[in-house]
């Protein structure tokens, strides 16, 4: 059943913004995981009553004997996944990002990361993607998760990258936290794009004036904004940083050095996420450039439609464009 987007109200959970003129893929995470499960019998999957809302049901439908819904019990989800990992399985598990990070944090740190357990957490609706207000918005998830040692953190841009990430994480040793995109996920990156764990990728070549460093779906927004900026005579370069931890310091410094000024864009608070990592790296290396951070101020955020929230809190397309063109 298709639903018509309603712009003035909070919508059902998990709807991504439907961008009229963009190609989308339905549930790329679950379909890719189901396919991977065919090839690798050691893969198992779990959810905490968020199967439908995390797109994992294609795996359940194909591999019902390797799938468990533990109920709405996020700490137990992570612990059970860790147990499976410790007897040789690769455990993919899902719930909303906010409940992985805030509720199950200690379990991720100790049951999983500390033992390098093969648990691959796909965390739904990261950042400001949920219209249900502060209880559902993981606006500090990168900040929290980067504080955990031996944890890999990935924030994919689009359906193309997410599919590759589903496969890649199976071979990344230890625990991985992935910011999940679900529903009708847009395609932003070209077919030729290749996700390499731990590596940032230059996805747009500019003239060296303005450089955008972005992660997650904000890279899609940055690509749109950079295209729009050409109308104002600005030719911005874009460095997409899908792996937040370990951080590709080298690529970031090289990119920063090659641009006069920088914009960092992320679906996260301005503190503790990508912008903090970028500026830390630059400062440490003595690479100093003006940086505009596009992200959320500190605070709790309200309920509402995605468009409303993004515009109100300054992470929408016009905001990125203004940072690129006007440098404010």
């Amino acid at each position, binding site marked *: 059943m298709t*639903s018509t987007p309603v712009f003035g109200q909070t*919508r059902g959970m998990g709807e991504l913004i439907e961008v009229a003129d963009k190609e989308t893929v339905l549930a790329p995470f679950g379909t890719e995981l189901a396919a991977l499960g065919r090839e690798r019998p050691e893969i198992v999957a779990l*959810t905490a009553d968020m199967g439908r809302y995390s797109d994992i049901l294609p795996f359940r439908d194909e591999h019902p004997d390797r799938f468990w819904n533990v*109920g*709405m*019990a996020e700490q137990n989800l992570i612990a059970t996944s860790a147990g499976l990992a410790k007897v040789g399985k690769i455990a993919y598990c899902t719930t909303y990002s906010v409940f992985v990070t*805030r509720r199950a944090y200690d379990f991720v740190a100790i049951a999983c990361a500390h033992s390098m357990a093969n648990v691959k957490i796909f965390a739904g609706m990261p950042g400001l993607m949920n219209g249900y207000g502060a*209880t559902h918005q993981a606006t500090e998830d990168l900040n929290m998760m980067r504080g955990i040692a031996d944890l890999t953190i990935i924030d994919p841009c689009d359906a193309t990258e997410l599919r590759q990430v589903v496969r890649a994480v199976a071979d990344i040793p230890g625990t991985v936290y992935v910011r999940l995109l679900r529903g009708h996920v847009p395609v932003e990156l070209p077919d030729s794009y290749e996700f390499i764990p731990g590596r940032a990728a230059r996805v747009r070549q500019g003239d060296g004036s303005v450089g955008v460093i972005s992660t997650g779906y904000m890279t899609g927004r940055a690509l749109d904004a950079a295209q729009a900026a050409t109308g104002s005579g600005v030719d911005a370069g874009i460095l997409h940083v899908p792996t937040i931890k370990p951080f590709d310091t080298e690529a970031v410094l090289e990119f920063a050095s090659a641009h006069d000024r920088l914009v960092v864009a992320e679906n996260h608070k301005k503190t503790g996420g990508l912008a903090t990592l970028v500026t830390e790296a630059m400062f440490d290396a003595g690479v100093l450039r003006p940086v505009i951070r596009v992200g959320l101020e500190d605070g709790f955020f309200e*309920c*509402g439609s995605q468009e409303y929230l993004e515009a109100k809190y300054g992470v929408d397309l016009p905001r990125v464009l203004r940072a690129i063109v006007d440098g404010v």
Partner: protein
Amino acid sequence: MPATLTSPPGTADVAALKDRAHELRRLQMTMTRGKGEGYIAQGLGIADTLAALYFHELRHDPADPDWPDRDRFLLSTGHYSIAMYAVLAAAGYLDEDELPTYGLNGSRLPMSTFDITPGIEVVGGSLGQCLGQAVGMALGLRLDGSPARVFCEFSDGELDEGSTWEALMGGATFGVDNLVALVDCNGIQADGPVTVAIEPVADKLTAFGWDTREVDGNDMQALTDALAASRERDGRPKAIVLRTTPGSGIPSIVARPRAHFIRVTDDEWAGFMDELEANR
């Protein structure tokens, strides 16, 4: 400061309370009008409980929402907000005219409850957080010698959360008999029917030290009787397991296979209203 607003035990006017519950259902349906979606099934299911609480059991004063000795009602299951706003309007905490803003951008009546709304005591929605707070409130009120009691609704899905069981043990340990837990067992959660082995709920709560009753949560007589019995102050916290029917009052919604989040077209809406009136 108002004197007790509670009706003495045995005085519940069941017919009048049923009318109130019907009114709450009607208000909720008007809130979904034109929006096409919402948590209406749960809201219809819990309507009788809220009517029994706000128009019979709770000592509260809509003119003075901060009255220190008011009974506290905590709605843990934040997505039941639609039912809460209906009862808050019917009781006089909110203006009925505000109800159509439910879920709209900038509204004081968001899809999931926050304590920005008059009459809402706690932030719900991050499920499994309220029973522990209810235990804390009950302890604090008892310490102050307040006659106030605390009523905390939570859902069968919230029985999946470890924090709920931690709070249950805490409540029993501290003997908070000024606390009544209202466990809405509607049989569903986000992914469909409840599949985790939570049953037998009432036996478990009893084993955990709670003075427990189990009722049909859509039977007003049974509800008011259970609430009256839960007034006893014998050193044990009270629990009422409510067996509710998602969509109660509108058979076509009851019949929906997936009731957690419902989409309603404008055509269906009119038919549902007719059913609601016919089932009065």
